[in-house]
């Protein structure tokens, strides 16, 4: 006999989240993830002028704002058959990278680590120091990190006018031509952020961290002097065995991102015990357990629809259930690095699959991987060369924009008819990770990761549930949109 508990609100995630747990014999027998907020962006976009999507879609999300802009710009560029000039491509990389890195920092320091300051861990030897460092709003870390983050976000003032919600990211490139002294100021900002990460987060230089190739090397690195908040986390992960907590589907997907000449910094693909081809055409969204009018079989987003209904038998979320060839996939920094082939990322999942610790380490690893790339991109900018091109959109084109937000794969599918948006479907990273069940009863990635966790039918719930939920860096406003 199981007991049902509805728990929420989960905070320190972006947006609203509720989880229903069926608890039997002191364990989670089944989890049901509910996104309790619907805004209807896909309905709002219908009938709009295609270019107006650039104003509307960033406002789906305040934390993935540039990623949403970039996906829309790519979909519009695809529809118009245009490719931005090199400066435009580099500016787009820099803008997206700034957001993604700031999001990783925000997640680690403001959303994720404060859970270890909770009194649940008062008996652990590390608790007093961790509580002093990471306690929400009053700890030394949030108060040290916010000014450093704000300084880094000055990248956005120059690259994009402001953050969140810029219009600088256009299908043809960037509206913001940069001159040499502005590029120098950006360079100083990146170097200052590097210095912050190396002294505060890692206690080593970025290249040293990025070169760590296995769990064993990571352990050796941790035991060396140097300090830094990552070492603190790794000690906690060891003590609480976060390497064996929160395993999901172990099917990892990435659309790839950061276009460079002839390649992407992080390649696209699928990983399930080994590399597999990513077939975008096999994506379909199932609405059997979501509050939408059933449209028969699951639909590819190019054909998808969004018709909310107030009541529906068996439905428990505003989130649709996207599937790749019928399978549940996990997306995010861990998936991105596993697919891209980083040896540490692959080794972290080799023994025991996806885990809370692996997801967190992958995010911090990306800080060390992407910042040096930003330094390179800045050096490649060439003032005086074009930043943006224009092209006329045909009357009835369609386009796809696939990008990697901090928290995973984001796709926009656009269809234009008679010069207006006929259909605009969005599948966000957390739509994948926090999806409800599909028609076959297959639970979503978080639902799988929560099943089996120890849980009490009436008393306080163990903090492990919080770690698992937040390890995905969920963005709930994107999830449903």
């Amino acid at each position, binding site marked *: 006999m199981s007991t049902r508990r509805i728990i929420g*609100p989960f905070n320190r995630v972006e947006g609203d989240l509720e989880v229903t747990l069926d608890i039997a014999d002191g364990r989670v027998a089944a989890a049901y993830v509910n996104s309790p907020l619907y805004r209807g962006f896909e309905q709002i976009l*219908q009938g709009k002028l295609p270019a107006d999507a650039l104003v509307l879609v960033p406002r789906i999300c*305040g934390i993935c704002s540039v990623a949403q802009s970039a996906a829309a710009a790519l979909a519009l560029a695809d529809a118009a058959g245009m490719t931005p000039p090199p400066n435009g491509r580099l500016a787009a990389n820099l803008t997206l990278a700034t957001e993604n890195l700031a999001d990783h920092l925000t997640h680690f320091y403001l959303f994720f680590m404060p859970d270890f300051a909770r009194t649940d861990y008062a008996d652990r030897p590390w608790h007093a120091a961790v509580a002093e460092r990471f306690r929400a709003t009053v700890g030394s870390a949030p108060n040290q990190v916010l000014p450093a983050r704000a300084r880094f976000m000055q990248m956005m003032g120059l690259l994009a006018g402001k953050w969140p919600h810029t219009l*600088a990211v256009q299908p043809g490139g960037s509206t913001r031509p940069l001159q040499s002294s502005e590029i120098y100021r950006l360079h100083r900002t990146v170097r200052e952020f590097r210095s912050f990460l190396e002294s505060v987060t890692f206690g080593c230089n970025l290249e040293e961290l990025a070169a760590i190739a296995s769990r064993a090397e990571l352990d050796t690195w941790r035991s060396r002097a140097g300090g830094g908040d990552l070492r603190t986390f790794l000690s906690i992960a060891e003590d609480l065995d976060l390497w064996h907590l929160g395993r999901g589907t172990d099917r990892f997907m990435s659309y790839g991102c950061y276009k460079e000449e002839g390649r992407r910094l992080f390649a696209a693909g699928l990983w399930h015990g080994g590399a597999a081809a990513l077939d975008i055409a096999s994506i379909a969204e199932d609405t059997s357990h979501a509050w939408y009018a059933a449209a028969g079989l699951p639909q590819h987003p190019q054909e998808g629809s969004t018709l*909310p209904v107030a009541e529906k038998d068996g439905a428990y979320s505003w989130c649709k259930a996207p599937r790749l060839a019928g399978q549940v996939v996990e997306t995010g920094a861990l998936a991105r690095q596993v697919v891209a082939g980083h040896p540490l990322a692959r080794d972290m999942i080799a023994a025991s699959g996806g885990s809370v610790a692996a997801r967190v380490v992958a995010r911090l690893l990306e800080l060390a991987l992407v910042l040096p790339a930003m330094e390179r991109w800045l050096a490649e900018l060439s003032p005086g060369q074009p930043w943006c091109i224009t092209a006329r959109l045909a009357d009835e084109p369609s386009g796809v924009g696939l990008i990697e937000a901090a928290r995973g794969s984001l796709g926009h599918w656009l269809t234009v008819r008679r010069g207006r948006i006929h259909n605009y479907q969005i599948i966000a990273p957390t739509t994948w990770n926090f999806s409800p069940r599909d028609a076959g009863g297959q639970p979503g990635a978080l639902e799988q990761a929560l099943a089996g966790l120890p849980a009490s039918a009436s008393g306080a719930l163990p903090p492990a549930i919080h770690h698992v939920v937040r390890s995905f860096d969920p963005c709930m406003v994107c999830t449903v949109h």
Partner: protein
Amino acid sequence: MNLLWLQSGGCGGCTLSWLGSEHGPLFRVLADEGIELLWHPSLSEACLDEARELIAHCASGQVSVDVLCIEGSLLRGPLGTGGFHRFGGGAQAMIDWVRQIAARARHVVAIGSCSSWGGITAAGMNPTDACGLQYDGEAVGGLLGPDFRDPAGLPVINVAGCPPHPDWITETLAALSHGRLRAEHLDDYGRPRFYADQLVHHGCPRNEYYEFKASAEKPSDQGCLMEHLGCGGTQAHADCNQRLWNGEGSCLRGGYACIRCTEPGFEEPGHAFETTPKVAGIPLGLPADMPKAWFIALAALSKSATPARVRENATADHQLRAPSVKRSKR
């Protein structure tokens, strides 16, 4: 002064903008201004039952709330139930919590254009029947009604913007904490006048191009964005080009139009956001307080007087001609 912050039909971007505050650690700034954060969904430790209990106590009056900040539109749909947003962990719609707590709070602050007027969430067909706390677009009303006043006699304070500048939020809260925000400090739409009594145009670095109507024709051009590319900076109330964003930014400095995001109804401009609507070649939206005939006459005059330097640089993405160097005659 304590502060309860709740989010509803928005994107969370107001909070993210606020976290970009450039005056030192935000949490310490708040403490220094005498502001205690009761709960914030993205920032506080308390969650699940602990958070629900606190919110319930705020609604029942067991905990008295000095300032209620709402971020995001209020979703009245479907059919007036508010069912498009339930506060997690319970059956009650968010609009019910907001009504209850707003009725008891000493002050109610709308953070951003969604909770001020409805904003982007109310665009298009407005599928969720979204509105602001005290406005539905330009119409006074919204969730709390036209007659709502807090115990001090203030209407909802609208820190409008999509998102608002971090300082607009902090300064408004500091003024409340120090008892220095009175009705006369709010404009006709309930926006704090310290930022709303300015125009985005003030301090625009493209001013020389504006003066001569030397206009940008495509994205990345350096010229004025008003004539062709949809810029509403001469009409939009905000100090964006005096109090810069993320260091040295603003929309216009970023090379794109001001979409008037601090104004009610900005989400439906009636034309493409980045294209200026015109009749007989004359832009429809005139600068604030500018008589039309004079604007047309001056625009024609200044166009004919445009220096070649300004005209050529206006449609380029970098400076083609530098200002000439003048030598004194001796």
